[in-house]
């Protein structure tokens, strides 16, 4: 379906120096403050790959997702989908290429509509086919996400969390988009259901050749799904590289701390002392220089003065690591780190 597009541009998504700032407060007695939720983010996501985006709450992951979906305009920079800028694009045209799956299946579905109405809504908006064709497509989609036929007549309130997330996935995929933004799609689910949904996302990716931007704070899940991973801290990407590189040889001290604090189910290891300070910084008053320096265990005086740029580093991995990854990852996308001492 997308063969024409894919031959033109190997990148499903490209962000060029994207920023989003919000103005906070500002009344008679208060000075207004600016919050740089997304700060100069550049990212390239090759077609058919899963880009994992990790970081703590408030680091700008979800704001980034909103900008990509066209729900809020960027303050600066460009978003290119299939090589075309979205800034002045028609919202309807954009929706054919990019669709979201949100975290909370309890609030992302209209409780007053039947499942067939919810899943079929995109088809009606875009006037795709006759009512009969639309109904057939909804049935096909529900079957693909593993829901029984009778689910079409149910309301979201009659379904479990896992089933609702399947409905959200069916709604996202019914327009056959190229790119799906998954914003913490499993963090509201129990682990046994999480595995079902992750398997489904992997199956559908293979079936439709989808590209995912997978936002999560769960590092084990990201490691399982993602081909490349970008780590965000206070609105900036601090490290970006392949899954192997990020998990086996993280270069940025923040990435290292994140990985150290992930608790794998191995008894006897105890809780690691990750050596970060207690306080998360106030995003409206980010620290000078490198935003991570007040919590960084290896910070030097210069870190407080000069912000490090996100720059490519020499690939230290041995030969053969690019095997199996599609073209454009190992060559055109080297590992990038924003640290003076990486």
């Amino acid at each position, binding site marked *: 379906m997308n063969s024409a597009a894919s031959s033109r541009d190997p990148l499903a998504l490209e962000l060029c120096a994207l920023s989003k700032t919000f103005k906070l407060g500002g009344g008679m007695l208060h000075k207004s403050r600016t919050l740089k939720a997304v700060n100069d983010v550049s990212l390239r996501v090759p077609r058919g790959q899963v880009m994992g985006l990790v970081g*703590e709450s408030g680091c700008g992951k979800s704001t980034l997702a909103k900008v990509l979906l066209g729900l809020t305009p960027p303050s600066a920079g460009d978003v290119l989908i299939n090589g075309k800028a979205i800034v002045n694009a028609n919202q309807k045209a954009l929706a054919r290429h990019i669709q979201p799956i949100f975290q909370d299946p309890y609030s992302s579905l209209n409780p007053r509509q039947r499942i067939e109405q919810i899943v079929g809504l995109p088809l009606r908006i875009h006037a795709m086919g006759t009512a009969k064709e639309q109904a057939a497509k909804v049935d096909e989609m529900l079957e693909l996400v593993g829901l029984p036929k009778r689910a079409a007549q149910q309301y979201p309130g009659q379904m479990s969390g896992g089933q609702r997330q399947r409905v959200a996935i069916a709604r996202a995929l019914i327009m056959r988009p190229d790119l799906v933004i998954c914003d913490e799609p499993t963090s509201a689910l129990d*682990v046994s259901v999480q595995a079902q949904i992750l398997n489904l996302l992997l199956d559908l990716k293979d079936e439709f050749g989808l590209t995912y931007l997978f936002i999560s704070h769960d590092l084990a899940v990201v490691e399982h799904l993602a081909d490349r991973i970008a780590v965000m801290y206070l609105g900036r990407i601090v490290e970006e590289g392949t899954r192997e590189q990020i998990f086996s040889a993280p270069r940025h001290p923040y990435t290292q701390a994140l990985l150290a604090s992930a608790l794998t189910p*191995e008894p006897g290891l105890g809780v690691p002392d990750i050596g970060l300070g207690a306080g998360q910084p106030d995003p409206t008053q980010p620290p000078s220089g490198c935003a991570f320096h007040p919590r960084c265990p290896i910070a030097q005086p210069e870190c407080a003065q000069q912000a490090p740029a996100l720059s490519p580093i020499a690939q230290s991995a041995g030969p053969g690591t690019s095997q199996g990854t599609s073209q454009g990852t190992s060559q055109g996308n080297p590992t990038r780190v924003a640290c003076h001492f990486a």
Partner: protein
Amino acid sequence: MNNLSSTERSTAPASPLLSVKQLRVDLPVAKGTLHAVRGIDFHVERGEMLCLVGESGCGKSMTSLALMGLLPRKAQVNADCLNFDGVDLLTVPERERSNLRGARMAMIFQEPMTALNPAYTLGNQLCEALRRHQQVSRKAAHDRALYLLKRVGISAAEERMRQYPHQLSGGLRQRVMIAMALMCEPDLIIADEPTTALDVTIQAQILHLLRDLQQEFGTAVIFITHDLGVVARIADRVAVMYAGEVIETASAQALFQAPSHPYTQGLLRCIPTPGKTLPGSRLQAIPGVVPNLVEKVDGCAFCNRCDQAAELCRTTPPLQTVADGHLSRCHFAHQLSNPAQLNAQEVTL
């Protein structure tokens, strides 16, 4: 039942701090009665960290609220035994119970913003916790609050004492909750998902702190969570809950090395684990959903999702001892704890 209590006794020779036998919690709902907790047994030794683990709706929070006496009035709590250090929690008058609460058993909740009073300063709330239960001067209470705030890693503690909850981040608020729980040096702290709302780096710091303090003060902790990674790292013993029942209890080591209930085994298999699961491969999900606890559950509650269910599973499985201190509520617990035996059985079948 007799058989059951004798196994309990053999694992706990000295009288435990808390012992729970056949605890049941029923809640009236629109469609009938929700059997949230369906006859559970466990005990907590002095100074140990017991993890109650299970998925949402398994009854772990209901259990903790029943122990604290914080369930709504319409909830029915029954038990054969609910004994906290010699005090029968079922018959103790409410006045005496509220004296226990905070002084000898304290609770840490998941969302500290809803547990702290937004209209009072932190210092005020910390001191009240102590002065409610003990005859101490304002100064002594203030000093203890200050000491504990410093102990839980809060910088500029003197200044924080004058601040209100909304002025703190989530991680700092949870540190304040821990300090508050420790004000009266309780014997037992019940921590209900205390790190679920926090970021991973903050979670690691809070867990590290909780483990340190628990060992320093010798406090017993019931730690309620759904995260098996957390359980593995902090628990002395673990009780796994499913559909209102405790289906397996064991030491943390034994539970992760030799899980002896199909549900525990399934839970451990379905989380992506670096080094064990191949990235991009399909995970071994547990099919189906949990049973509806408004209706009566016959036989093993897990049997409709279990890949090893047999005819026998239509009857309620007894709690079986698979090793010293390791109990499993499964008819095939002995085979499951010993995979070689299971394979042999499959061959003969």
